[in-house]
């Protein structure tokens, strides 16, 4: 099933790139359809896991990665359906989705018994909110990469097949900005629910756990980026670059922090 999902994502990405070359509408539709099928299949995997273990499927980094990939894929579908001429985002996001799923497969599942401390109502909400924000930040990241490519090519007057494939600079900039403004409240709520949960378990809202600290850093980074956009007029390339850096912080927070520092976050 998981291999089928990967295969569908690969097909979706290939179709999208094929569409760039041949501009055949059928390929564009095929890319979107296989992307939707992939997300449906992945939803099935998550639901199956939920039924088998009867716990919310995000109690380990392994499954959180799968959720993360799911969120990004779902977002990419929404974007390409809502905004006209943006299906190329499928071609750009599938590599990241596939990498996430491959890491999911390679990573050893957490074998330790699920600690009862996670079995609270608020915990799944905390995880869902955080992962939604990560998914949105990932979309912003992908849109920023696309922006930088499109901008560079336009500027150097390299009007090639990609020019038509990629959306306009305006849409890409708008997309990177909007996904970020929606993602930030989710991150904020994720941090707050996390604090509420910590209070219930440990009796204190904030314990300076490495992950907590890091999420605060990320939060400030995005606030800084938004501030730059709104008050300092960062737009275009500058905004895109900072958005990329911010997302790299997210990725490090998601995967890296736990390997370097020890904390009570499972992942």
């Amino acid at each position, binding site marked *: 099933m998981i291999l089928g999902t990967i295969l569908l994502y690969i097909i979706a990405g290939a179709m999208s790139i094929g569409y760039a070359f041949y*501009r*055949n509408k059928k390929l564009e539709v095929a890319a979107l359809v296989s992307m939707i099928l992939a997300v449906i299949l992945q939803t099935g995997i998550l639901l199956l896991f939920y039924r088998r273990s009867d716990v919310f499927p995000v109690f380990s980094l392994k499954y959180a990665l799968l959720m993360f990939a799911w969120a990004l894929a779902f977002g990419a579908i929404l974007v390409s359906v809502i905004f006209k001429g943006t299906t190329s985002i499928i071609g750009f996001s599938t590599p990241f989705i596939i990498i996430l799923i491959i890491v999911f497969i390679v990573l050893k599942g957490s074998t330790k018994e699920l600690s009862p401390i996670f079995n609270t109502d608020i915990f799944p909400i905390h995880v869902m909110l955080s992962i939604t924000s990560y998914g949105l930040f990932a979309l912003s990241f992908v849109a920023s990469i696309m922006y930088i490519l499109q901008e560079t090519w336009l500027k150097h007057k390299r*009007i090639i097949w990609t020019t038509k494939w990629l959306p*306009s*600079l*305006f849409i890409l900039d708008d997309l990177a900005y909007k996904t970020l403004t929606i993602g930030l409240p989710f991150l904020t709520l994720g941090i707050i629910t996390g604090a509420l949960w910590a209070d219930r378990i440990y009796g204190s809202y904030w314990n300076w756990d490495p992950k907590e600290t890091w999420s605060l850093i990320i939060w400030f980074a995005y606030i800084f980026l938004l501030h730059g956009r709104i008050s300092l007029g960062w737009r*275009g390339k*500058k905004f895109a670059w900072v958005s990329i850096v911010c997302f790299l912080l997210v990725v490090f927070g998601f995967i890296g922090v736990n390997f370097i520092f020890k904390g009570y976050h499972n992942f």
Partner: protein
Amino acid sequence: MKLLAVGLNHKTAPVELREKLSFTEDQIPPILKEMLLLSEITEAIVLSTCNRIEFYAVCEDAGKAVDGITAIMSRFGDIDKKSLSSYLYIHEDRDAVTHVFRVASSLDSMVIGEAQILGQAKDAYKIASYNSATGPILNRLMHRAFSVAKKVRTFTTIGLYTVSVSSVAVELAKKIFGRLGGKNVLLMGAGEMAEDAAKYLKDAGATRLIVLSRTFVHASELAVRLKGSAVEFDELYDQLMEVDIVICSTSADHYLITNDRMAKIVKARQHKPLFFIDISVPRNIEPSISSFEGIFLFDIDDLKGVTSQNMREREKAASEAGRFIEEEVNRFLNWLGELSLVPTIVSLKDKFEAIRQQELKEAVSKFENPTKKDREILDAMSRGIINKILHEPITEIKNVHTRGEVLKDITLLKKIFKI
């Protein structure tokens, strides 16, 4: 029965000749009428654009029909018939169908892939069918041609690449700004290409057009013509703060927009995108400004580079489209064969039956006292011979039909048996 496409176009005839034969909509019905007066022609369509004049016809004898059509052309166009024929191309059957499909799909156009020809072909068909000049064959042919054209446009990249400098400018603007609604265009100087580009941008949705020229009177005149507003030349740098797209086509011998001045403007605009199109020669915008964030600068060579690259893409797409066309031509010819198959078989059988009846009558008359049984024997024998003779050829035609070569064979059959 033959399908015929006779005509001349930009490749075969000079413009002076095409001008004489470029008929208006009112002139076409009488031509159609004349064509149908020729006894050979049963269906007719006339397609007349500034690049081509073509006559499509269903006829019995191609040679006579071509002769008649040439005569009509020479009369209506007031051209010597002899000199006319050297410019004509004549396509029959498969070639005619292929030609019509290629024309409708814009593969035969001067600018390959241009979109107008399909509309012109549709109009030509409308006029012909309105004047009852078309029948089942041309109706089908034209409908297939329109659907092939649509298919070519949908499944190849032929209509995707723009090939004029103005439309490339619009396309680039769209890739920078998304929609052009709410965007302001500044036109510096005049010139056909610059005005064209300004018009295109406005048609594509740009909100305001500001015209600026060394002499204010010129600017005002141009502004009236393009439905914009004129400003004084020394307002240039103020305008650069406001506008989104600048088309520069001035005849100054130095840079009007310099790197130093732009540095300040870019900052004050907070790097809001600004798209420069410099079609003046020598260039009037300092090229180095394109390194500023948010500034996109294309000069005439850049734009021409894009158009010629796009033209190559179109040609590639055109050869790809050939595949669709061939497929559809085969399908059409199959249908045509089917159409003429049944009547041919019927008339073949009729002919044999007539011969049989006549021979039977003669044979019976040679008996002194033919009994009923004698008649029956002769009748059965003659019927048996004919059925056996005809069985194989008819089965064979029906089989051949599936191989799509029926048209040729039917013609041969008709010739051999004089039916």
